[in-house]
């Protein structure tokens, strides 16, 4: 029985991303402005360049921003609950580092967009496999998973450093540097399918089990005493969250802070109950990334890397949240 005010907020929360996606289609470097873009959408001239841009360039890209933002925020939210730590970011398990290594290796060796996307995803899966295999042996406790994740991250970061060192500064290194800063400029309808499918599956799973995720915030003993199979569930959630991160990084490069900050804001808004937290995080994350991506591709002639924008926005937001959080708990102890 949700009180009316809360229901109103919920409606706003879920209508917002939709509205933003539609709005984003009207902005871009090309064309005379919002009005012209609007008219162009309803024009019946088949050779209209602006409409072609809107449908073939802006729309897939904006959708990708929506999905990537939702993925990263939802993954961050469930990982924070899983590790019982609100400071956890989606990068903690080493999945992003694996994906970064895979993508840059593909840039070094081939450079084709398909190779980069597949390379990123493949090595993200390698990272997941390593973390689960070693973590399971260590009992699949939160601490074990984090430690293995940190080690995996460090390994792939070192290998990435090696790639940067041997990359040709003329033709390869700029591409590598740019990819690492994050961006969606390469998104087309043709390469969007993996992101949509994997996100649907993984996010769908997390949405289905989201009430059960509340139990995972209790200690292992309590959760077991409530009849929950903790280890398999934790592994399943880690896999789902990792897949979300893997597919997002493969599509958009390294984008940080969404997985850390958005769940906090969502939690402040709808509370820690995953029943509301997971969809709220996803909606908010998607909305924010749509706005940032629209800025990235419109404000300057050159593309502003998304990772830079999320960092510039995320760090002050995080500090503000931290101050508010500490104040609420009664000062720094």
């Amino acid at each position, binding site marked *: 029985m949700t009180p009316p005010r809360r229901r109103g907020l919920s409606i706003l929360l879920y209508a917002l991303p939709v509205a933003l996606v539609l709005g984003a289609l009207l902005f871009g470097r090309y064309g005379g402005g919002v009005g012209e873009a609007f008219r162009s959408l309803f024009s019946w001239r088949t050779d209209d360049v602006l409409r072609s841009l809107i449908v073939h360039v802006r729309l897939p890209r904006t959708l990708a921003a929506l999905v990537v933002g939702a993925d990263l925020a939802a993954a961050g939210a469930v990982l924070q609950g899983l590790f019982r730590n*609100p400071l956890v970011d989606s990068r903690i398990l080493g999945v992003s580092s694996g994906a970064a290594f895979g993508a840059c290796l593909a840039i070094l060796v081939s450079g084709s967009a398909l190779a980069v996307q597949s390379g990123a995803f493949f090595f993200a899966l390698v990272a997941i496999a390593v973390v689960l295999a070693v973590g399971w042996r260590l009992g699949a406790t939160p601490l074990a998973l984090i430690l293995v994740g940190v080690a995996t991250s460090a390994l792939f970061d070192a290998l990435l450093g090696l790639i940067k060192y041997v990359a040709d500064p003329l033709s390869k290194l700029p591409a590598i540097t740019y990819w690492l800063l994050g961006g969606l400029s390469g998104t087309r309808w043709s390469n969007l399918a993996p992101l949509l499918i994997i996100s649907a599956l993984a996010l769908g799973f997390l949405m289905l089990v989201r*009430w059960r995720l509340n139990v995972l915030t209790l200690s292992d003993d309590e959760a077991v005493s409530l009849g*929950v199979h903790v280890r398999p569930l934790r592994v399943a959630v880690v896999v789902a969250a990792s897949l979300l991160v893997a597919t997002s990084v493969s599509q958009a490069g390294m984008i940080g802070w969404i997985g850390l900050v958005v769940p906090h804001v969502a939690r402040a808004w709808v*509370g*820690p109950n995953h029943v509301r937290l997971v969809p709220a995080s996803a909606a908010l994350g998607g909305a924010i990334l749509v706005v940032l991506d629209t800025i990235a591709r419109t404000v300057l002639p050159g593309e502003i890397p998304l990772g830079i924008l999320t960092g510039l926005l995320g760090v002050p937001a995080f500090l503000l949240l931290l101050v508010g959080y500490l104040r609420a708990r009664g000062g720094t102890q």
Partner: protein
Amino acid sequence: MRLEADRASFAYRKEAPCLHQVSFAVETGEIAFILGANGSGKSTLLGLLAGLKHPAAGAVRLDGQLLDALAPRERAKRVGVVPQFHDPVFSFSVEEAVALGRSPYVGLFSRPGREDRLAVERALDAVGLTGLRRRPITHLSGGERQLVWIARGLAQGAGCLLLDEPTAHLDPQHEHGLFAVVRRLVAGGAAFVIASHHPETALVYATHVAFLKDGALLESGSADETITADVLRRVYGMEFAVLAGQGGERAVVPRVGAVAR
């Protein structure tokens, strides 16, 4: 309902057994206390009774059935655990925290339904927390939070609740408020097993007690018969006096020299 440990033993490592052939039982309507010094095996015994640990020798039975043979879900519907004191990380509301007790009844891909909400209502009412249902658990006192965990156990439908040192951080008012609730619930048909450091509380509230020393059962029986100065000396290594007051009050007082003023 009868939950018993039958000559149960447990060891983390072969060379260091922490529980040795302990027999202990609790039935509907009883409040059983497990007493002993630190490291005597109280938490281990509680863990065995909860089904969180598996005995290396001997058995733990619930209504005659081996506890290990029960599916975790089934066990959860009958035995509940109230953990030691800890600060919750997330600020769930009282209602949401108690609702977690319905986990054994709610499917993996589902959310609590009408039945579950009713069970939560009843549980909140039974411990007297209905008025605080929307309060975040991070904004409760220690005593109120213990009531939340007990309510959660009731929402599980558990006939027996296991409490690990529930009053360690509570002031006298909250401690006895808690036990007032416990007594009320027991009168309504529950059973409680309480691991504790406080023989004086056991003296007042327990139906029967068990003293553990170095992982073995030292003495067990009714509270009045078992809590004696002699047993206390052997368990805690210091002198106590067990007193009875005019109005039926019972007390355990340490025999310590008067402080020079």
